[in-house]
C-alpha cells in the first residue's frame, strides 16, 4: 500500500508538474526590441529555445501610450519606432538558461534591448523548483519506507509459510506448488492494495478537490486520477509481490 501510494503520488505529481510547467511556459513571453525586422529563423539562428515569435504592432504600442498626435506626425513616429517582438520559448528554462538565451540574442547587432521580466520569472521558477524538490524528497522517503515494509512483509511471509513449504518439499511438491498458497494470498493482497489506492485517489479527485475552492487544485483535478492509473498500480503491485514471494520461496531451505 505504501509503495503504491508513493507510486500514485509520483504519477499524479509528475502529471501535475508537467501541466503546471506547461502553463508557466505558455504564460511566459520575453520582449525583444530590434532595429530591423527579424523573422523567427533569425531569432532561432541565435538561440534554439525560441519557439514562437510575434511582432507587436507599432500602432498598438502608440495606442497603448495614448498620445494624441496629428496623423502625419503619428506616422513619422511610428516609422521611427524600432520593432517589438514577443517571444515564446520551447520549454520552461532555469534562471541560468534564461540568462544564456538573453546573452545569445544580444549577440545580434539588430537587437537593441531584451526584457526577460527576470524577477517575476525567478520567483515563479524558484517556487516551482521548491515544490518539485519537496515532492521528490517525499516520494524518495515513501519509496525507502515502502522498501523496508516489503522486507518486513517478506519476514512475516517467511515466518507464516516457511514451515508449510518445508513439509511440502519433503513430500515432493514442486516450487510452484509450494509457493501457490503464498502467491494466491499475495496476489489478492496486491489487487486489494491497487483497488484501495485507486479508491483513495478517486475519492480525493471526486469528493474533495471538486468541492474545494482552491483554484490551483481545481485546474488540475483531472490529473489526480486516470483510470489507466489503476492498471499501472495493479501491474506494479503484482510485480512487486511476485518478486518478493519468489525471494521468500527460494530462501526457504529444507531442514537438515
Amino acid at each position, binding site marked *: 500500500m505504501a509503495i503504491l501510494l508513493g507510486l500514485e503520488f509520483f504519477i499524479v505529481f509528475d502529471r501535475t508538474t508537467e501541466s503546471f510547467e506547461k502553463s508557466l511556459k505558455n504564460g511566459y513571453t520575453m520582449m525583444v526590441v530590434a532595429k530591423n525586422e527579424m523573422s523567427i529563423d533569425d531569432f532561432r539562428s541565435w538561440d534554439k529555445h525560441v519557439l514562437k515569435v510575434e511582432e507587436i504592432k507599432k500602432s498598438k504600442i502608440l495606442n497603448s501610450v495614448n498620445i494624441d498626435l496629428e496623423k502625419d506626425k503619428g506616422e513619422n513616429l511610428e516609422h521611427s519606432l524600432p520593432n517589438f517582438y514577443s517571444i515564446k520559448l520551447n520549454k520552461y528554462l532555469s534562471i541560468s538558461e534564461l540568462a544564456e538565451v538573453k546573452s545569445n540574442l544580444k549577440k545580434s547587432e539588430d537587437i537593441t534591448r531584451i526584457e526577460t521580466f527576470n524577477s517575476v520569472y525567478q520567483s515563479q521558477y524558484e517556487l516551482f523548483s521548491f515544490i518539485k524538490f519537496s515532492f521528490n524528497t517525499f516520494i524518495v522517503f515513501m519509496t525507502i519506507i515502502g522498501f523496508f515494509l516489503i522486507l518486513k512483509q517478506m519476514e512475516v511471509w517467511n515466518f507464516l509459510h516457511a514451515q508449510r513449504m518445508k513439509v511440502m518439499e*519433503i513430500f*515432493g511438491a514442486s516450487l510452484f506448488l509450494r509457493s501457490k498458497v503464498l502467491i494466491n494470498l499475495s496476489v489478492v493482497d496486491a489487487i486489494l492494495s491497487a483497488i484501495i489506492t485507486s479508491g483513495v485517489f478517486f475519492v480525493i479527485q471526486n469528493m474533495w478537490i471538486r468541492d474545494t475552492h482552491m483554484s490551483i487544485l481545481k485546474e488540475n483535478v483531472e490529473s489526480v486520477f486516470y483510470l489507466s492509473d489503476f492498471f499501472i498500480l495493479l501491474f506494479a503491485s503484482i510485480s512487486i509481490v511476485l518478486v518478493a514471494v519468489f525471494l521468500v520461496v527460494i530462501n526457504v531451505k529444507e531442514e537438515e
Partner: protein
Amino acid sequence: MSENVITAKNLTLAYDSTEKIINNATFEIKKGDFVFITGPSGSGKSTLLKAFYGNLKPQDGQLNIGGLDMTNIIKHKLQELRTHLGIVFQDYKLINEWTVEKNVVLPLWIAGYSAEVQSSQAKRLLHHVKLTGKEEKYPLELSGGEQQRVGVARAMAKNPFLILADEPTGNLDEYSSNVIWDLMENACQQLDTTIVVVTHRIPMMFNIPYRHFSIDAGGNIREVH
C-alpha cells in the same frame, strides 16, 4: 528373488568432511521388508533416514532408493521419488493452518488427484487411524498421539512403496502406539510396502517378521535379526 528397494554399498554419511556419521555401510532392503533401525542417541539413525529421502547426499559410497542413485540425483527426480515415499516424523511435521483432512491428503494434492478421490481417501485413512469425525479439526486441537496418527495417515495416503518413520511412537501413549504399529504391520503385509522405522526400542508385541539393523556409536551398521 524380491527386488531391492534400498541398496547401500560402502555408504558413508557426514554433515562435514571431518566427522563421519554413518561409516562404510553395506546392506540391502527388499520389497515388503519391515526394518527396525536402532542405536544409541547420536549414532546416526535419523541421518540414515534423511539420506533415504534425499535430505542428505552420501559423502562416499553408493545409495540406491527405488532404482535411483541418490549420490547424483537431480532435483526433479528427487521430487518425483518423494511423491512415492511416505515419511513419518517424531515431531509430526503437520501443517498447522490446514485441517486434519487436508494434511492427510497432502501427497494426493501434490500428485494432482481430484477432490473426490482426496476426500474418499481421507475418510478411509482417518477411519483406519481411528480419527473419524476429526476431519475439520486443526492439528493443534489434537493430542500428540492423534497428531502422529494424522502423520501416519498422510504417509500412507498415496500407497507409497516405501515408508520411512523416525521415532513414530517416541512420546506417544500406548493406544496411539498400538494403532500406528497395527497400521504399519497391515501396510507391510497387505500392500507389500517396505517400511523402515528408526526407533530406540522395538515394540514388545510385534506380530510380523522383521529385520533389525543396529548402529553403534561409531556409525557402523550391522544386521542383528
